[in-house]
């Protein structure tokens, strides 16, 4: 692991938490009153970031499947890191969605008291919790050996944490290692249907809405899965470059494989996106064309053309095609893809909501909450900064102080 980035990134995270805490305070004290979204655009920046982190977790989820289900050796060195990254992304997703709820406190008990299984949101809640449970256990069993063995070497608070996580054990023999391997393998099997259902349900969540023509398509769940794999895969590739040492060319080999996969996924995503625009414009329906125009020639056209297409697609496409042998170029391309992917999520959420669903709604009962003109305000950005900083700090602390990254060992061997 490259520790030199740890202090700088930790400072960034702490400053982010400090700056964002003003927005968090305002949100927690005044509810949703400080936000800019309203009743006609009921979801805004936070839902876009929820989807962003959902995508990031999907890439890491894929790597854990390849490593612990299919046993692909090339990915074994980043297996525990990927499992841990799924957990951190789930944490950020949960924070964004909880903060987006008008009555946040009820989410903690109402899902258990009066669940409605006809709602995909209920299923998302169930699957989200299952994913959290599976990946907590999986990460734990992957690093348990290192934790038990490392407990004696640590000092102070860290020693206490290691001892706590060891549950009183001080030895870790071959039988335990084999048992943990078996548990991880079984959890990987379990995560396959749960994860696929979780990511597909997130797409279906939007696709079932009959009055939302941009979302109401069988293509949406597929687009979600591809988008998730692309953005998440790009993040994992970037982290591989940052965290994995290039001993015996291991990192370069990994980046070569990952770079090719990302190139394929990027092309596939662009084809699907182009299809969505082509079909949408060809229908000629006013609501669809208005939504698409909102993306391409609307007030925030630059999010689509500059942030998404040029920075997030064109430059990575060139780098991944012509500089695929350079690990730095592949990492740069992937960094650009995953960082700019929030633009894709924003352009998915907002444009359909930004079209009045009944003629004349725009002229009656004027109020800022009854308008489709939505621009995230300072409060929303501050809360976003806080949540991302919390996620970054959790990731940094986990990778720095827990045996998440181990260059010498990998996959099932990591626990030994």
């Amino acid at each position, binding site marked *: 692991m490259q520790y030199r980035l740890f202090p700088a990134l930790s400072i960034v995270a702490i400053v982010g938490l400090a700056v964002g805490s003003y927005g968090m305070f305002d949100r927690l004290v*005044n*509810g*949703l*009153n400080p*936000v800019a979204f*309203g*009743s*006609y655009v*009921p*979801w805004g920046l936070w839902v876009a970031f929820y989807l962003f982190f959902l995508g990031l977790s999907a890439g890491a989820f894929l790597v854990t499947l390849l490593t612990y289900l299919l046993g692909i050796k090339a990915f074994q060195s980043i297996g525990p890191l990927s499992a841990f990254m799924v957990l951190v992304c789930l944490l950020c997703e949960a924070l964004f969605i909880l903060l*987006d*709820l*008008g*009555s*946040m406190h*009820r*989410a903690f008990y*109402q*899902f258990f*008291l*009066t*669940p*409605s299984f*006809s*709602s*995909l*949101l*209920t299923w998302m*809640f169930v699957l989200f919790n299952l994913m959290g449970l599976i990946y907590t256990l999986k990460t734990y069993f992957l690093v348990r050996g290192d934790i038990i063995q490392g407990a004696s070497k640590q000092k102070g608070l860290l020693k206490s944490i290691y001892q706590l996580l060891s549950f009183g054990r001080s030895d870790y023999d071959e039988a335990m290692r084999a048992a943990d391997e078996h548990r991880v393998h079984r959890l990987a099997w379990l995560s396959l249907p749960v994860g696929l259902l979780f990511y597909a349900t997130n797409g279906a969540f939007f696709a*079932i*809405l*009959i*009055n*939302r023509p941009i979302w109401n398509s069988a293509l949406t769940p597929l687009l979600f899965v591809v988008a998730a794999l692309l953005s998440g895969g790009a993040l994992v590739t970037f982290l591989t470059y940052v965290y994995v040492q290039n001993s015996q060319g291991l990192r370069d080999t990994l980046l070569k494989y990952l770079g090719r996969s990302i190139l394929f996924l990027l092309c596939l995503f662009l084809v699907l996106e182009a299809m969505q625009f082509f079909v949408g414009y060809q229908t000629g329906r006013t609501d669809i064309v208005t939504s698409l125009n909102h993306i391409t020639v609307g007030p925030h056209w630059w999010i689509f053309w500059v942030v998404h297409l040029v920075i997030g697609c064109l430059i990575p496409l060139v780098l991944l095609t012509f500089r695929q042998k350079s690990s730095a170029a592949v990492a740069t391309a992937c960094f650009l893809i995953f960082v700019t992917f929030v633009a894709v999520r924003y352009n998915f959420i907002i444009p359909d*909501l930004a079209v*009045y*669903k*009944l*003629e*004349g*709604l725009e*002229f*009656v*009962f004027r*109020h*800022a*909450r*009854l308008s489709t003109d939505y621009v995230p305000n300072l409060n929303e950005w501050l809360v976003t900064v806080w949540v991302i900083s919390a996620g970054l700090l959790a990731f940094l602390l986990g990778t720095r102080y827990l045996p998440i990254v181990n260059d010498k060992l990998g996959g099932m061997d990591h626990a030994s």
Partner: protein
Amino acid sequence: MSRFLAVEDQLVRMQRDLNRALDGDPQNIKWGMVIDLAKCVGCHACTVACVAENKLPPGVVYRPVLEQETGTYPAVGRKFVPRPCLHCQNPPCTKVCPVTATYKNEVGAIIVDYNRCIGCRYCLVACPYSARTSDFGDWYTRGTTEGQGVVQGQKVAAEGYEANPSAEYGKKWPKRGKGSPVGNARKCHFCLHRLAVRMLPACVTTCIGRATIFGDRNDPKSLVFEMIASARAYQLKAELGTNPAVYYLA
């Protein structure tokens, strides 16, 4: 002596329909509404009455009156379309609610249980008619001066009207700002609290053109039943299959 025969005000008939429905088997009641667009003059009295009746805060509206232009110049027209919740009998909003906070009740009205709603706003997004709004906790009196020594300062104004809860769903809600319905989805509920005491919905009684007709659509003797059977009757966005209980007369 007048040369015209006395015509019964349709409000009187609707009141009689209401009493008959409430005196009968409550299991058979299915409330419905018909809005005669030929009679609506766009006065917005129904909107204002609804806001006052339910003490709606800024940004929350149950029954706006849409103004739509028809035709192309020079053959243009203008029509007014009051849009309450359409109380769909196949509602897309209730299916998406994750905690059963919104549902169709026994009289066919789509209602929201404020004490269950988590405020996810999925129902707002799912409604094809944009008939739901979210209560973001706004106040009309926010930003007004306190006016020291003046009788009608901000606090007095708020306490005198806004802070007092509405009688929605016939329940006693806490003072505004102390919990539900702030943070919740809100919508037209056919003034169930008024119906419970044999009063027609506020939008019906205040309609100066008698454009809004309300009653039990299961009762063949009721005016609303008669109007639904009219050749002019249609449902908004019928192609979606939501089957609204609110009909329009073209």
